[in-house]
């Protein structure tokens, strides 16, 4: 009897962790492009995600996606469309701001321009948060699909007792996350553009010798990283409400996921984010909800203690 309830709770937390973990994974992959591969410290990543959420909201409502696709599918289409919009934003932010404190310009600066990046992106984060506050106010928004309050029941699995509820909206979001990562993985691993991006990150000077426009590669990678995180934001917005300060809650998760997965590894970042989602949901079995984030970081520290290079990171790269 109690065993059945325990198993049910564990399975339920596992499913919830996998579903939310897929979205966290997507979020982390966005940051992995910027921080893990290009080594640009972007404090504003969470706030770009917040911008993606508002972007999805306005694409859904005022831009007529809800009228075109209906309330069920519309939120997901809006989340995906937030990607291209934020890509352009990220591209321009890199062109006019980030490029001045990163890449070939800063090779000779102290700390390779990381201090300047810290200040710049922290400033951007403040501008985005407060800008959103002025424009949209502090009341929570959401782009909730009716699917968010319906679930598939799997089971009963054991006798007539153990059954697991799988939230439909989160499942759709998780599937979109995985598809987005697969597409990005293909782009980075196989396409000419992706190879040029990796070459530019590996050795910018040699990339120029090959005829690769390294500055443009960096802009594209930055835009892509922002776009991916924005899509993750849009997907979160189909399940949760959001406000201008939401970025701060997630930016720490993103950095933890990237470090956990291993710097420079895109797939690693996905598994890092997935791990964080799982820990977060599983911890609710034994800990009060307020301690979710504490649990994440305790386990984060334990993993990093035993495997400092992360899951898929190489301990001695960049010869």
């Amino acid at each position: 009897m109690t065993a059945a309830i325990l198993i049910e709770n564990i399975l339920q937390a596992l499913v919830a962790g996998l579903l939310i973990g897929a979205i966290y994974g997507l979020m982390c992959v966005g940051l992995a492009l910027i921080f893990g591969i290009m080594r640009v410290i972007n404090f504003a990543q969470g706030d770009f995600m917040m911008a993606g959420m508002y972007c999805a909201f306005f694409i859904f409502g005022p831009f007529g996606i809800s009228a075109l696709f209906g309330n069920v599918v519309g939120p997901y289409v809006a989340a995906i469309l937030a990607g291209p919009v934020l890509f352009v934003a990220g591209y321009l932010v890199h062109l006019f701001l980030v490029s001045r404190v990163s890449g070939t310009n800063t090779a000779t600066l102290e700390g390779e321009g990381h201090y300047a990046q810290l200040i710049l992106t922290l400033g951007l984060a403040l501008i985005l948060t407060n800008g959103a506050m002025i424009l949209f106010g502090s009341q929570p928004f959401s782009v909730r699909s009716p699917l968010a309050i319906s679930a598939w029941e799997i089971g009963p699995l054991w006798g007539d007792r153990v059954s697991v509820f799988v939230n439909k909206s989160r499942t759709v979001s998780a599937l979109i996350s995985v598809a987005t990562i697969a597409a990005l993985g293909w782009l980075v691993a196989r396409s000419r553009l992706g190879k040029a991006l990796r070459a530019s990150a590996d050795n910018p000077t040699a990339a120029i010798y090959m005829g690769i426009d390294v500055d443009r590669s960096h802009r594209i990678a930055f835009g892509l990283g922002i776009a991916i995180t924005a899509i993750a934001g849009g997907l979160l917005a189909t399940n949760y409400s959001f406000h201008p300060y939401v970025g701060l809650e997630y930016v720490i998760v993103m950095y933890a996921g990237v470090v956990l997965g291993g710097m420079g590894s895109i797939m690693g970042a996905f598994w890092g984010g997935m791990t964080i989602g799982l820990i977060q949901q599983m911890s609710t079995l034994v800990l009060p909800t307020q301690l979710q984030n504490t649990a994440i970081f305790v386990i984060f520290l334990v993993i990093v203690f035993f495997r400092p290079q992360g899951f898929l990171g190489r301990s001695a790269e960049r010869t």
Partner: protein
Amino acid sequence: MLEIEGLTAAYTHVPVLENVTIRVGAGQFVSIVGPNGAGKSTLFKTISGIVTPLSGKIRFEGRDVLAVPPPQRAHMGIAHVPEGRQVFPSLSVMENLEMGAYTEAGRGDWKENLEKILTWMPVLAERRNQLAGTLSGGEQQMVAIGRGLASSPKLLMLDEPSMGLAPAIADFIFDKLAEIRSQTNLTILLVEQRVAEALQTADHAYVLEAGRVVLEGTSETLQADDRVRLAYLGM
């Protein structure tokens, strides 16, 4: 083909190149020799656009190179095989070669070039899927040379291909270069500290010391020159 005239470059007021004039004719093999810190690598970096000169001119097939943005220079047909190899460590051998073929000419000739490169350096075929960062120094040098050749260059610039390699491997690299040259008639500009080898394979050579061309001539003339023999050839 390549004309460098009165080139002067400096790193924050310390002159590295002073009034350097060098000519490379089509099909020629030209060596630039000289001690450490003579400005040899800086000369190459200026041609590739990583260093901006204070004055002077660089022309390639009559075009003003300094007016072309650095990433576009590879597309003009200038391949730079940099000092210290500088392969892309997290890319596979094959992907490194593909990056060499980033130029339009390289993309067009990709299949033929790849076949030639793998025939010249069969070890690259064996290691095609290995990450370039995990290769030995000699193998990395072959990747770097293969990467340069994959761009279908008109001019191949080699910066100290023997650096950091065991003498036997360095000899092997020089033999390969001679073989490649004899089969392709490619124009080559070589910078080297191993003066004897550099002079042997070259048609024409320059001696660069403290940023100035102190001597130039056919390689026979230089090999016979007393100053060169004393300072570089140990004779």
